[in-house]
């Protein structure tokens, strides 16, 4: 286990280094002169030269790369061109807001996905109704679903706020949008592992022992679903974070996603690249976490490890 985990941590670090290298390359390829972005388009040549010197823009690429990797490793993602504040602070301020949204979305996703998947998996035949719902949910991109919910519940029915705030009511529609999008994946995975568990020999033994149906489902069937669901949470994280950006933009929710969208429209290079790096770190961390948690909760993973 320890060996496997350390291997995963090393691979995760390699991925993060890869992402940092990519963002560095992207910064070089970005059109426009950063010095002009900061000093303004009509700045004197001397001012531009000072800005360049301060930002080490005239240094050789290798020196700049070393400085960039060094500062990222120290947790310094640079200073926003527009807001004149450290990128780390800007992201840090908005992290809790986004974390709340992500948590509500995940809750919706898990409750509905696992519930529907279990219901479908326990049936003798696959439910056509659920298959249809799955196909429909898969066909509506996150932002479209957000617009539809916004139109119906905020504008037509006037039940919920149309967005812009961060209160509990403001979380309902964005959380629902984010969660509903992932439901088909979770439902499919849970239904599949439920069917596998029902067909497995340990269920046959449990039935033969005369255990009641509810107990078999809770103790033997549900437990085997936990592991694939945890894997899916980890794997899904890259897509999930994309959903966060769309949902935050549609609902004008002041989180990291809308920060990034603003950074894009304002050509705020450090903020844009900072969010990419933070996003990748979150994805990789969740994948790693999913592996650890799965090893802890799934008895089969431990058996494999011992053998």
């Amino acid at each position, binding site marked *: 286990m320890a060996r496997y985990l350390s291997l995963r941590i090393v691979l995760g670090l*390699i991925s993060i280094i890869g992402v940092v290298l990519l963002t560095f390359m992207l910064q070089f390829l970005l059109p426009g002169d950063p010095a002009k972005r900061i000093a303004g388009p009509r700045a004197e040549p001397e001012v531009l030269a000072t800005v360049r010197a301060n930002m080490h823009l005239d240094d050789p690429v290798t020196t700049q790369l070393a400085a960039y990797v060094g500062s990222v490793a120290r947790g310094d993602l640079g200073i926003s061109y527009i807001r004149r504040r450290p990128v780390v602070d800007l992201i840090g301020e908005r992290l809790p807001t986004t974390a709340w949204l992500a948590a509500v979305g995940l809750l919706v996703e898990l409750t509905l996905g696992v519930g529907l998947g279990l219901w479908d998996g326990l049936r003798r035949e696959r439910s056509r109704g659920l298959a249809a719902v799955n196909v429909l949910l*898969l*066909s509506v991109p996150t932002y479209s679903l957000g617009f539809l919910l916004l*139109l119906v519940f905020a*504008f037509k029915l006037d039940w919920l706020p149309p967005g812009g705030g961060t209160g509990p009511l403001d979380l309902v529609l964005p959380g629902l949008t984010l969660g509903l999008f992932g439901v088909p994946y979770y439902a499919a995975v849970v239904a599949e592992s439920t*069917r596998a568990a029902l067909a497995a020999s340990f269920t046959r033994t449990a039935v033969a022992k005369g255990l009641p149906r509810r107990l078999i489902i809770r103790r033997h069937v549900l437990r085997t679903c936990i592991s694939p669901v945890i894997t899916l949470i980890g794997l899904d994280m890259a897509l999930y974070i994309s959903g966060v950006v769309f949902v935050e933009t549609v609902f004008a929710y002041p989180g990291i996603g809308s920060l990034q969208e603003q950074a894009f429209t304002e050509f705020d290079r450090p903020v844009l690249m900072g969010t990419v790096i933070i996003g990748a770190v979150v994805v990789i961390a969740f994948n790693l976490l999913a592996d650890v948690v799965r090893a802890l909760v799934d008895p089969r993973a431990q058996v494999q490890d011992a053998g």
Partner: protein
Amino acid sequence: MPATRAATARRALREHRTLVVGCLLLGGMVLFALVAPLFGNPYATPLDGLTESGQSHGVLSHGHLLGTDELGRDMLARSAEGARTSLEIAFLANITSVGLGVLVGMAAAFYRGWIEQLLMRITDVFLSIPTVISGLALAAVIGTTVIGIVAVVTALYWAWAARIVFGEALALRRRTFVEAAIASGVPGRTVIRRHILPNLSSLILTLAALNGAAVVSIGSGLSYLGAGIQPPTPEWGNMLAEGAGALDYSPHLLLVPLACVVLTVFSFVLIGEALARRGALSLRRSWLDI
């Protein structure tokens, strides 16, 4: 015999209903894009384009089947012209991302060793990049032309295809007929072309359909965020962005392009589901049923 043939065709149609509906829907969208010039100039702002109070016409108004936008431009003409751009991006990006993924996945699975390590580690890096976030960063660099967006979407989606193809190709690599071909001295490229690729074809087709759905939604999504085709060129994503501001007083500005996106994604999902179901039929039975 014609009667039997008709009966067979009918039965095939019933069995593949999902596939047929998906193909018809996708074909319909492509046709919609092809006949776009019939619906008039998408940039024209005719005198009757706005109501007397300067509002846009709603759906089913006289002369404008899908209404007009806030400048009085015809929404039908704009969505059809938008279909050209959106579908062009979707088809190109689908081909390039699945193509690149298939090449990388097969090469890694077939040649193994350091090639596998290198290619699959690069794949891992791309898989851990959150799509939209890096899409915005990439679009800032590559630019917002059709080719630029195709490049961005390809960069974001090839790794999924590569992962899936790698797994399947690796399993094929261990099959006896592939080992026999290698042992009898058939060159690697021929083995890939003659033994591995044909056996992957149905997987690649399913992948292309499901990837198509993702590519349509991300392409329009990037445009919606402002990182795609720029107005005034109509594209479903930037039409969504224009309509988002008018959601409470003229929702058709948003609902028309939204319906286009959803119908196209839906058609790809239907095709993908139909193809995927053919491959994976569960024959297991439940012990609880006894």
